[in-house]
């Protein structure tokens, strides 16, 4: 395949890392939802591009799922959740945006070091893709642990999962990618439904601590 194809792939993957940083930076709920939609969009683009250059048509399914479910349905659904729970005001972060971003930089550097060393053997397309994917995964995890807010944690998890899809599609000729992405979509659906059904309040935190105190008495 020619150079440009690879460059485009890298462009898109890098774009996802960038959007992940935007996610980290966001401190408004609706803004966050929009940025996540963007994240999913970029993902579906890069998956589509992979489908094209690997001429693996089944990947288009994955791209479509990413586009429809993650870029449209879920953001809308979450939008309603946010309105319903009335938590659109702010996002409570743990230890400021700035430090988090800096830490994110460190994570990207780490994943670069690890991956580029590890994948010395693999073909260039896979190398950078994997490196970017790992950074997206780590950033998503970072977002989950630095946000107190259920919805933004869900978003963190979904961005993490986007990173996984990116890696899976980047792995040339990997079977079961579609199935896996579907399985993941099921997972996501469960999460969102969970938020709906069980009225998980602002944060995961509040539920269990009180539960522990009231019901379990494990604390003394």
């Amino acid at each position: 395949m020619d150079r440009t194809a690879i460059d485009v792939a890298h462009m898109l993957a890098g774009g996802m890392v960038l959007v992940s940083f935007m996610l980290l930076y966001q401190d408004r709920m609706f803004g966050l939802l929009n940025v996540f939609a963007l994240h999913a969009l970029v993902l579906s683009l890069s998956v589509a591009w992979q489908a094209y250059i690997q001429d693996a048509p089944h990947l288009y399914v994955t791209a479509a799922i990413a586009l429809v479910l993650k870029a449209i349905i879920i953001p809308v659904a979450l939008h309603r959740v946010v309105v319903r729970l009335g938590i659109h005001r702010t996002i409570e972060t743990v230890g400021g945006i700035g430090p988090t971003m800096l830490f994110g930089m460190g994570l990207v550097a780490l994943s670069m070091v690890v991956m580029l060393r590890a994948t010395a053997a693999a073909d260039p397309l896979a190398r950078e893709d994997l490196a970017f994917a790992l950074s997206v995964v780590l950033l998503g995890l970072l977002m989950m642990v630095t946000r107190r807010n259920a919805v933004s944690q869900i978003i963190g998890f979904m961005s993490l999962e986007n990173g996984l899809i990116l890696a899976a599609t980047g792995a040339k000729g990997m079977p079961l990618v579609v199935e896996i992405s579907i399985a993941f979509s099921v997972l996501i659906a469960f999460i969102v439904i969970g938020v709906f059904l069980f009225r998980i309040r602002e944060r995961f935190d509040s539920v269990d601590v009180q539960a522990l105190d009231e019901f379990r008495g494990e604390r003394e």
Partner: protein
Amino acid sequence: MTPVAAVLWSVPALLSVVVLAIATLRWPSAMRLVYGACLVICLAVLARALAYLLEGANTPSLLSLPIGLPWVGAHFRLDALSAFFLAVTGLGGAGASLYAIGYGEHEQAPGRVLPFYPAFLGGMNLVVLADDAFTFLFAWEFMSLSSWMLVIAHHWDPENRRAGYIYITMAGFGTLALLLAFGLLAGPAGSYAFADMRGDTSALSGLVLLLVILGAGSKAGLVPLHVWLPLAHPAAPSHVSALMSGVMTKVAVYAFIRIIFDLNGPPVWWWSILVIALAGLTCVLGVLSALMQHDLKRLLAYHTVENIGIVFIGLGLALAFSAHDMPAPAALALTAALFHVFNHSIFKSLLFFGAGAVLTATGERDMEHLGGLIHRMPLTAFTFLTGCVAISALPPLNGFVSEWLTFQAILLSPILPSWGLKLIVPAVGAMLALSAALAAACFVKAFGVTFLGRPRSPPAQRAHETDSASLTAMFAFAALCLAAGILPGFVIDGLAPVAQDLVGGRMPAQSAIPWLSIVPVAESRSSYNGLLVFAFIAISAMLAAEVIHRFASRAVRRGPAWDCGYPDPSPATEYTADSFAQPIRRVFGEIAFLARERVDMPPPGDTRPARLTVTLRDLAWDSIYAPIADGTAYAANKLNYLQLLTIRQYLSGVFVALVGLLMVLAFVMLVWT
């Protein structure tokens, strides 16, 4: 059938008695059935072991079964040492079972005793027969487990539950220590059969010794590993207390001898210093703690600690001698230790039987509520007195003989070259003498306060003589105390093969010596003749009494006791157990227990009574066990907060782990290239 097979059959037999016990639990006659069966089996074991021992026991009899640890199998071995200890377990078990046939009538929870009692016996026999590490530890822990169930048989009392908890935890600790020791002996290849261990000597044999001291010592009750013992032994029903104190501690001694003398290769001189020092400490602290008790069974339990100390002094000396390659003195020391093992198993069981009889007759273990029982239970009193004399190491009974032999071994030790021993052995000799004297005081107190004087409580007044089965057992053991005391030569000769196996030497044959006296080394050096001493005392006492009664008066008149002009019939004016121990507490208590006495004397005109409060501290507990317990609680409390985190915080745990590992990996890969 080979000897080992013959004795090994006792284990399945006892286990089937367990099944029998569970099956017949509802029957009224279950108790007699179970104890009767145990009695028969134990007697059979005793007979077979003695027969083997008296045949000379020169060829170990082996047996291996395809059970237990796969690719190793279960190995069993009957040699002189195990035969001797089988005789001890068999004898103790038989006595306890016979006693229990009567004592069991008073058991309020037979369902929690009958099934575990035979299991306990079987476990002890199995330990002594085991010839590979797995079988050994299996039996060892099985023994602990079944005795634990017996300790908490009366589980409604929280004290017993606490005792049981401390016991089972210490037992687990000991087992793990022994497990580590065996791990060293077996090596990475995992050759767990004792036969393989005998061959090669581990480089870390010193570490093995330390671990065995922890493992076997904690079961035997070496200070400072003894804390569980005075709690657990009294908690069990009395016949079980007798077994635990009289026999199970001996099984621990067996473990020590088996591993250190048999498996662990040639001893090093500094081992003996460690063992002897610990043993001396154990003697003195054990007997002093015993003196401070006023719970009869607890007093006996503490006193077991002292006797274990005496045994380990002998073992330590044997180690020292054989480390310097002096077989004959080593044989003397070892024989002394084993003789004391035998003696203690007899009279400690006897004393616990007596305590049990008192307990059933009065429902009291606290000596402060007893007294005057010699009138109401004269036979029990007589046997108990015999036990007291024997355990106080007074001639002509058996306790004195083993202690005398130990003294003789100490007298031989100046020939030991190493200076550490030169300095520590005399000190330990003094400690041994001191503990012997204190033991006499302890049992004057035990017998005097319990059986003599006036009853201190209504139950003590209503006491009645115990049943015939118990009495038979007690008289049998009392007779044994006397027999072993006046005919020690036969016991020593019986022990000769054991010493021959373990230290390659033996004491001179005793049965040949005229007048049946015993001569450890040479007659010019020292000799003792229990038979003649007994005869002389008996004859001269009877002679004196006869002469006086015949030629002088034999008139007797009863009158009130001399009350110094202030008649006060209440038994409260009697000397109590605590006041009896007070002088000795004044002398030794400050060091041994940080004893503090506080007198609260009201000013003149104030009518409230003056109070004397005494506080004793258990140093071992305060300095070792309490910190451990507190540390565990502290760690548990601190860590418990991890149960209360939020999902986000748990996620951060995962996150940190991931990033950390990735960084390590990056570091590794960067360093590699």
